[in-house]
């Protein structure tokens, strides 16, 4: 199976985007995206787990029997998530306090099990690595986008507390757009679904326009 890198990346970021096309992993996509920084942090953590899980599964894909593959995948992913969880707790403690529970929940993020099952268990190490990266990138973009829109509408800021995630040199990202507070609803769960719905509609619109043009 020879899939070019370009196809893989295009697939992961746009055509087959985890959130905007496959519509899996919606739990973190809705729950943590109250700000752009949270979305970015969650996306990056998930990407890290996804890449390593993909590579590991691609490595061991020929020695595990099909009957027990799901438990093996789950154990692998769970170990990885535990490692990421501890790393974040140690080095990005502020972000960890925000994302806290949801880091542990990366284990049950269907996006990861989905890619491992659908792609890494049938492909070599290198394509699996690229696929994990591309899918993770698409996931991160989607989450950051949702987070930014909700943050902008809900609290009038962009990338609040970004310096805690990326270091003090990224403090310039933190923008306060308006002082009016904003619509509380966008920060609450319904806001996530509304924004996600409009993004899905927007992507479909772009796709259909592209096809007919």
């Amino acid at each position, binding site marked *: 199976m020879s899939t070019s890198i370009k196809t893989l990346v295009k697939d992961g970021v746009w055509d087959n985007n985890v959130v905007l096309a496959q519509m899996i992993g919606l739990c973190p996509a809705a729950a943590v995206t109250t700000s752009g920084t949270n979305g970015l942090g969650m996306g990056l953590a998930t990407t890290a787990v996804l890449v390593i899980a993909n590579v590991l599964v691609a490595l061991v894909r020929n020695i595990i029997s099909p009957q027990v593959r799901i438990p093996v995948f789950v154990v692998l992913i769970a170990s990885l998530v535990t490692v990421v969880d501890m790393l974040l707790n140690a080095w990005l403690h502020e972000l960890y306090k925000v994302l806290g529970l949801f880091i542990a929940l990366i284990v049950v993020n269907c996006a990861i099990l989905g890619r491992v099952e659908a792609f890494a268990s049938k492909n070599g190490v290198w394509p699996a690595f690229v696929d994990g990266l591309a899918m993770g990138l698409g996931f991160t973009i989607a989450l950051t986008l949702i987070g930014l829109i909700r943050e902008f509408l809900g609290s009038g800021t962009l990338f609040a507390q970004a310096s805690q995630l990326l270091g003090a040199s990224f403090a310039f990202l933190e923008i306060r757009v308006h002082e009016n507070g904003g*619509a*509380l609803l966008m920060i609450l769960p319904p806001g996530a679904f509304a924004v996600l719905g409009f993004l899905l509609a927007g992507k479909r619109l772009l796709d259909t326009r592209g096809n007919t043009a």
Partner: protein
Amino acid sequence: MNADAYHAARIFAAPHAHGGGEIRRTMLRVQLALAPATLFGFWLYGWPAFFLWLLTLFFAQVFEVMSLRLTGNAGQVGFLGDGSALLTGWLLAMTLPPWSPWWIGALGAFIAIVVAKQVFGGLGQNVFNPAMAARVALLVSFPLQLTAWVVPLPLSGLDAPGFLDGLRITLGQIPVPDAMTSASLLGYAKTELSRGLGLAQALAAGHAPQLSWLGVRAGSMGESSALLILAGGIFLLATGVIRWQAPLGVLAGTLVPALIAHAVAPETCLDAASHLLSGALMLGAFFIATDYVTSPATGTGRLVFGLGVGLLTWIIRTLGGYPEGVAFAVLFMNALAPLIDRGIRPRILGRTRSGQPIRNAGK
């Protein structure tokens, strides 16, 4: 339309005559029924109320036309459309604090028309009542602006804002003076109860429920004059635009628990008259719960629907965190309406209730 469907169910064989009913005519009748209460509201709250009403209707229509253009359905209707968007905007304006800034009306119109109605497929496809969905979204998003009720001008003792000052209030350039703000009866009762005061003591200090009949009190245009809303509702009943099941259900659903609770615990539960005449209950009973699209299709279903709205309203008002619950109750029952329709089905023509064919029908 509703009445037509009702009569159609009694017609046995084709050809059928068309009653001449039109969406536009139905919408116009409902608007006519709303007019007295609205005009009374303008008199009570002055120019800002009028501007807010006008803006909300305008934006509702603009968003409707925009959505129809985007979805390629603009050809179906002219610029004024079938009037359904204007009615939605009108109902929304009736539930807003009359002196809200303009963007409340504009945003509310966007949520009602685009998010709650057109996204679901336009007129006839929406699951939730657009006006109530917008009202709840606004209330959750902007609790401060949505609870800034003003004292009716005839009572305030202050000068009514003139045309230009009224415009400035609606545009948000002048803040509403504190001397003019006041809690609505339900909000007042909720606050006093949470402070540990008994109702008898709290209500003695002001807020006589009797004022509700006349409607000279703080509130939205749709709640201030229960009497005029009731008159509009009776007009709708008389002209066959709505049927009696849903309004009766709503009123009974609130009245019965209110009577019982007030008899048991008069210090913590408001009396039945206050419940019936306060908040959006009358508006909800006659104008919101009777929405053709979002209520069940059968008469019995509508009765169940109405009872649910009424009961939930009473529960939210008495036990919930918000002083008023009609909008929440309506949305909740909207979600249950398909389920009610599944459970309560009309008898199939030519069959018994159990679905057996009727024999000896010719005898």
